[in-house]
């Protein structure tokens, strides 16, 4: 169930108003002399019972009236699954990779220390594995802690871009884990209107302390890691010698040492318990007016308190005593092992593996386990909570709570899936051109055959395009090519123009900026076809635009959101020679745009953004016109409950009136 205005539900406590009024408005009995009191003492009990029962009924009735009124204002709608067109229905769900490349990630776990693999390497390998297994129709977002050492990717369908960013990533120096993690569910990477995303957090930080939107993302983390939280900034003795921004682990505390101006050329030596651990020189600057910032680190073999000292050489580099001391506590560093759940595995299986790996419950805190639940229905969350309450050392990152269709097998496929690069994309490039023939005739006339333009036909028959309008007079084409392509074929009854390019292709200049592709293609298309088509419709990323030939002129435009019944004004841009009706959205579904056409009502277009897949092209008769499809989908997708609630409200009001206005009736007592 969804709500048109769920904030109205906050008014639900108003149902208590009748009760409050009942008690507040209770009139104070007035003392009245009355001689015939003997006649009041008969049958009073029965009358009181009747009126008490009536009071309760009326109070409940009035509370129900208010509750129903609030519900009507909130606008409940029952979500109904979309009609299935083919068995290849795909539920798109974002995958957000949260990559911890903070300085701590440079830690080398003892188990793999010999190979020189750091925790970050483990994270990256896991992320690459995940990215390779995510189907191409699912956007991936990459959210590193330190964006300087890893490229952030926002909801990209181009997974190569994600993989390339991961390969180029490395441990950084920033450690704003909480902020970045919070952005994973509140920032632009997340489409709030899409299905619940799968958030894969690859970190050993205490993410449970952050504010997590439990309804959207499930992230479970065991307690021992919470002890990894360390003071972020601390000064050794205060003053101008500052150490900060240094989350630490057992093998190394990364320190940022800042020295005031005048320290140019000085050497900073770090001692732990009297032993020199690290040293660094401040670069010499011309006038010595710049702040010196050097990075130092140290390690401790075990968890204990340590005396930290930092000295300057020469000792008189700065005024005063240039030795700074502080006592810090290094917590124990737990061991870490990793376990993958089998495909389709369940949580109870994971818990059992956890118990086995941890040697039962004897000393579970000594180990850290990484679980990646990937598939099947997630169950037994309460059991997991029990494990956590016992202090089991584990990190469990689970996908969202949504129960997936049987053919989905979890947010990670059970087996690696190789998706053809030229396969249909959810947000591809689509252009509607006006032709005077059916689509098949137009394609044949245009010389587009299976062998020559295989990718085009794949796209046309794929699952990602909006339904093709195959009626005479229109056609929908899409091209996903590695090279910019402009095809033009003419024939007696019409013309087909195919313009497209694969933005993921390495040689594409738009590989890192897919949003810039659409204007380029539209410009090319318009130039090629000479502004003859009625309109071009295209979507790239979150941008959807409709280009209308300049013969239309300046008119009012409106847009109809999926599942809504009200047209909203649409801003019109006016590039050279055309009207550009554009809107940006991550909301998938059927959008409808219309343009005022004096004397002929409206010109309208239906744009399917990542909609239900198109039925097989071999059966054009099964296709619906865009308008019909829109209406059907709108009706089927949500059932408005306002009408039934209104009837219920009317019935309750009639009951209340029939019961009489006796809210404040009191009982009789002597």
């Amino acid at each position, binding site marked *: 169930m969804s709500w048109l205005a769920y904030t109205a539900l906050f008014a639900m406590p108003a149902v208590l108003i009748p009760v409050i009024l009942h008690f507040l408005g209770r*009139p*104070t*009995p*007035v*003392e*009245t*002399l*009355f*001689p*015939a*009191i*003997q*006649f*009041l*003492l*008969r*049958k*009073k009990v029965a*009358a*009181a019972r*009747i*009126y008490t029962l009536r009071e309760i009924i009326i109070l409940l009735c009035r509370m129900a009236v208010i509750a129903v009124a609030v519900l009507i204002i909130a606008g409940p709608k029952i979500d109904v699954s979309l009609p299935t067109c083919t068995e290849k229905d795909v539920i798109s769900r974002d995958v957000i990779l949260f990559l911890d490349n903070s300085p701590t990630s440079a830690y080398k776990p003892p188990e793999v220390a010999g190979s020189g693999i750091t925790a970050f390497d483990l994270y990256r390998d896991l992320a690459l594995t995940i990215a390779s297994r995510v189907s191409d129709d699912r956007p991936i977002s990459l959210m590193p802690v330190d964006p300087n050492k890893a490229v952030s990717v926002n909801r990209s369908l181009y997974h190569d871009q994600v993989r390339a960013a991961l390969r180029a990533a490395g441990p950084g120096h920033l450690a704003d884990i909480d902020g970045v993690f919070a952005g994973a569910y509140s920032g632009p990477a997340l489409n709030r209107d899409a299905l619940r995303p799968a958030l894969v957090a690859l970190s050993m930080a205490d993410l449970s302390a952050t504010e997590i939107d439990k309804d959207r993302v499930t992230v479970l983390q065991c307690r021992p890691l919470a002890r990894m939280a360390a003071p972020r900034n601390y000064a050794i003795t205060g003053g101008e010698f500052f150490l900060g921004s240094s989350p630490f682990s057992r093998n190394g505390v990364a320190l940022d040492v800042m020295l005031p101006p005048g320290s140019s050329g000085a050497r900073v030596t770090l001692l732990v318990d009297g032993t020199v651990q690290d040293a660094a020189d401040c670069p010499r600057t011309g006038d010595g007016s710049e702040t010196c910032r050097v990075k130092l680190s140290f390690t401790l073999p075990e968890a204990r308190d340590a005396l930290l000292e930092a000295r300057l050489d020469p000792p008189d580099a700065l005024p005063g005593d240039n030795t700074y001391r502080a006592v810090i506590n290094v917590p124990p560093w737990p061991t870490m092992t990793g376990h993958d759940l089998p495909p389709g595995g369940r949580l109870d299986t994971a818990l059992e593996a956890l118990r086995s790996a941890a040697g039962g419950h004897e000393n579970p805190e000594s180990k850290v386990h990484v679980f990646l639940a990937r598939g099947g229905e997630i169950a037994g969350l309460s059991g997991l909570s029990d494990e956590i309450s016992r202090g089991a050392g584990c990190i469990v990152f689970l996908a969202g709570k949504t129960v997936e269709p049987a053919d989905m097998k979890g947010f990670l496929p059970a087996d690696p899936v190789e998706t053809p690069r030229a396969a249909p994309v959810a947000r591809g490039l689509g252009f509607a051109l006006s032709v005077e023939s059916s689509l098949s005739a137009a394609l044949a006339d245009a010389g587009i055959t299976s062998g020559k333009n295989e990718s085009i036909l794949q796209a046309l028959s794929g699952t990602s395009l909006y339904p093709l309008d195959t009626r005479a007079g229109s056609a929908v084409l899409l091209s996903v090519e590695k090279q910019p392509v402009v095809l033009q074929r003419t024939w007696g009854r019409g013309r087909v123009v195919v313009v497209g390019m694969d933005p993921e292709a390495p040689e594409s200049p738009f590989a890192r900026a897919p949003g810039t592709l659409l204007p380029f293609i539209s410009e090319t298309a318009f130039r090629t076809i000479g502004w003859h088509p009625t309109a071009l419709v295209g979507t790239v990323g979150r941008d959807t635009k409709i280009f209308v030939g300049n013969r239309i002129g300046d008119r009012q435009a409106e847009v109809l959101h999926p599942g809504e019944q009200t047209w909203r004004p649409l801003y019109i841009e006016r590039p050279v020679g055309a009207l550009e009706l554009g809107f940006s959205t991550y909301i998938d579904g059927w959008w409808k745009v219309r343009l005022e056409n004096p004397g002929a009502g409206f010109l309208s277009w239906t744009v399917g953004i990542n909609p239900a897949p198109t039925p097989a092209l071999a059966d054009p008769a099964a296709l619906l016109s865009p308008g019909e499809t829109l209406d059907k989908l709108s009706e089927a997708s949500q059932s408005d409950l306002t009408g039934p609630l209104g009837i219920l409200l009317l019935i309750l009001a009639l009951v209340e009136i029939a019961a009489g206005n*006796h809210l404040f*009736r*009191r*009982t*009789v*007592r*002597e």
Partner: protein
Amino acid sequence: MAKEKTLPAVKTAKGTEDRSPVFYLSPEWLARVKSLEFRARLVVEGFLVGLHRSPYKGFSVEFSEHRSYVPGDDPRRIDWKVYGRTRRLFVKEYRAETNLDAYFLMDSSLSMNYGTPVSKAEYGGTCAAALALLLYLQGDRTGMVAVEEGGKEGSFLRARGRRQDLAHLYREISRLPGRPGAAVDALLMRSADILKKRGLVTVVSDFLAPLDEIRRGLGRLRHRGHDIILLWVLSEEEHTFPFSQPAVFVEPETGRRIITEPDAVRASYLAALEEHRRGLQDIARDMETDLVELRTDRNYAIALDDFLQRRGSGKV
């Protein structure tokens, strides 16, 4: 008629002006008159004027003899039947009955102090005073009995026929409201002991007492041979129970309190009142007495009219 025209116009409850003499018999209007004697006179004369009757004719007055008409006699007193037979003018001479002792048994309990626009005691007292005046005018003797709290004899005026005795009766009736008195059953029992000689007994009370006690007291009076009239006085509130807000009802006699919701008990109250009324009617029928219901918001003319209707031929 000229007297009616001199009456000042008075606004009625509906906002209209009423110049009828009967209107001046409304409790609200008569409450302005402090003197019970004058009030009784207004009731008697105004009521009879309103009915276009002579105030001094027709009530328990017996024909005595004829005498010759002399100028100055009221022509209406000429006996035209005799004239038809004899062709001579005779006028009728009447003789008032003088052998009737009429006693008013005034309920002086605290419950009688209740009522609007006048209390039941004032209303009943005015009615009793008016009836006493009528009886006096026809030459009967009037007296009264009232008992104090605990059944002690509070006021007892032996029936007498003089003018000053009537004034004395008025004074005693005027003193009743505000004086602690006994319930009606005690009044009846005490009166049965006092009134040895048979006569006309008019009981003015709200009869808010157990019916058995009332029946017993009336039975003793009846056993003495008295002709009994029951004037049952209730206020408008007691008749209709018009309250709407929750209230603590306090019984003035006993101080008993009841917190109740009027709307919740109105039906049962009215049913209980109707049951009480039927019980009183049964008692009146069994005792061969007249039961006249009076309401403190009703015009005295209506009350007297009811009373006279009950008394049949118009004789008290």
